């Protein structure tokens, strides 16, 4: 019997194609990834069967589990323009540095008089910032409704300007109209959400996108809790 001969070839294999592919994927994911900005409060939205994704251009009001409203705009240009208008109306001054920092914030839930202090605070301090949310008293202190009104004006202005510019240049316009989104915690009382809804309906805004999580394991967990 002859001995079994060992293969003489080297045991190392050429991994170049695999590495090429890996880097291709890295590049793809790096370029497509959009990072979420830090949110001022953790909100656990209720689940639903809806599979519609949230549009990109939104004016978002978040309601936390204690019913406090937070305000945010997705369009960066409109966000800063809204701040300028609010600053004029409520006579609150912002430094250039504060305006720049405000552009990087996703949403906030403080009185406009506390806003400069809130912007200067660090990420950790903001979490502990004593707040009652954006004041939403339609008679005495309608700050939320002012924020929404100015933000709607600004975003719609930008939308129309971009659309006309695209038309003049003979290009297809891909922009979206602004949508009003509400992200509320499942444990929040409905009346606090209703107060926010009323702010919108008073401005003749009747269509909303309620942000929900996708129906799945979460609901089962709560049912098990009951048992």
């Amino acid at each position, binding site marked *: 019997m002859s001995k079994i001969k060992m293969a003489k070839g080297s045991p190392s294999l050429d991994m170049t194609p695999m590495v090429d592919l890996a880097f291709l994927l890295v590049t793809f994911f790096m370029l497509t990834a959009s990072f979420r900005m830090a949110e001022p409060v953790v909100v656990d939205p209720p689940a639903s069967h809806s599979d519609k994704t949230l549009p990109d251009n939104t004016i978002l009001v978040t309601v936390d589990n204690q019913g406090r409203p937070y305000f945010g705009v997705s369009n960066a240009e409109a966000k800063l323009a809204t701040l300028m208008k609010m600053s004029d109306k409520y006579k609150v001054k912002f430094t250039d540095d504060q305006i720049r920092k405000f552009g990087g914030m996703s949403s906030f839930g403080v009185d406009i008089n506390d806003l400069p202090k809130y912007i200067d605070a660090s990420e950790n301090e903001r979490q502990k910032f004593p707040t009652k949310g954006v004041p939403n008293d339609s008679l005495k202190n309608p700050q939320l409704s002012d924020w929404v009104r100015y933000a709607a004006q600004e975003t719609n202005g930008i939308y129309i300007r971009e659309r006309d510019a695209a038309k003049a240049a003979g290009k297809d316009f891909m922009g979206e109209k602004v949508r009003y989104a509400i992200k509320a915690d499942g444990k929040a009382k409905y009346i606090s959400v209703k107060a926010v809804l009323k702010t919108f309906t008073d401005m003749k805004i009747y269509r909303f996108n309620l*942000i929900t999580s996708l129906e799945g394991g979460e609901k089962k967990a709560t049912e098990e809790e009951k048992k």
Partner: protein
Amino acid sequence: MAEIADDGGGHKKGGKKRAKKQSTRIDMTPMVDLGFLLLTFFVLTSTFSKPKSMEISFPAPIDNQTKPPEVKNGITLILTKDNRIFYYKGQFNAPNNPDGKPATELSETTFSSGGLHKILLEMNTYANDEIAKLETKVKNRQLADTAFKRLAMDAKGDKRSLTALVKTDDQATYKNVVDAVDELNVCLVGKYVIVDMTAPEYALLTAKIK
């Protein structure tokens, strides 16, 4: 491993000068490791970040003078504390009403599939049957998708399909409302609205949950 092999060309000018013997291969293992680390990071973080949303419309306020329209096939859901849900079918009849109709009573149900879901399906058979028929037509290529959407909307808006009112008291949570609306969407109820509770309804509810 992936390596760049290079024979170190050049250096052949000076005849006797010896070419360097050192290999120019670079060990790329650390770079590839880092590449995969980044790949894993981006794969895990970037997907599933887009939130889902539920579109909903609220009615424009109407002046109190206009009488609400008569609803034949209707259900009113009343949400309250501890995730409890009550409902009644049809119009609200106050006790001792002049028409001599029996007074409305609240029945209780649950958010589980055997509760609210079943009631809504039973009451909304017209829209469900019509849409099921349309769906088979689409499957058999007898109907275009766009026409299906329009006809499904018509079926949901038909008089024979269900109309629902969702009402809450101060104690109901936002989750309850979203659950109820979601259930209405799942049961293909096209006509629903979230409105305020009337005083007689509230009186009925407080008596019930006491």
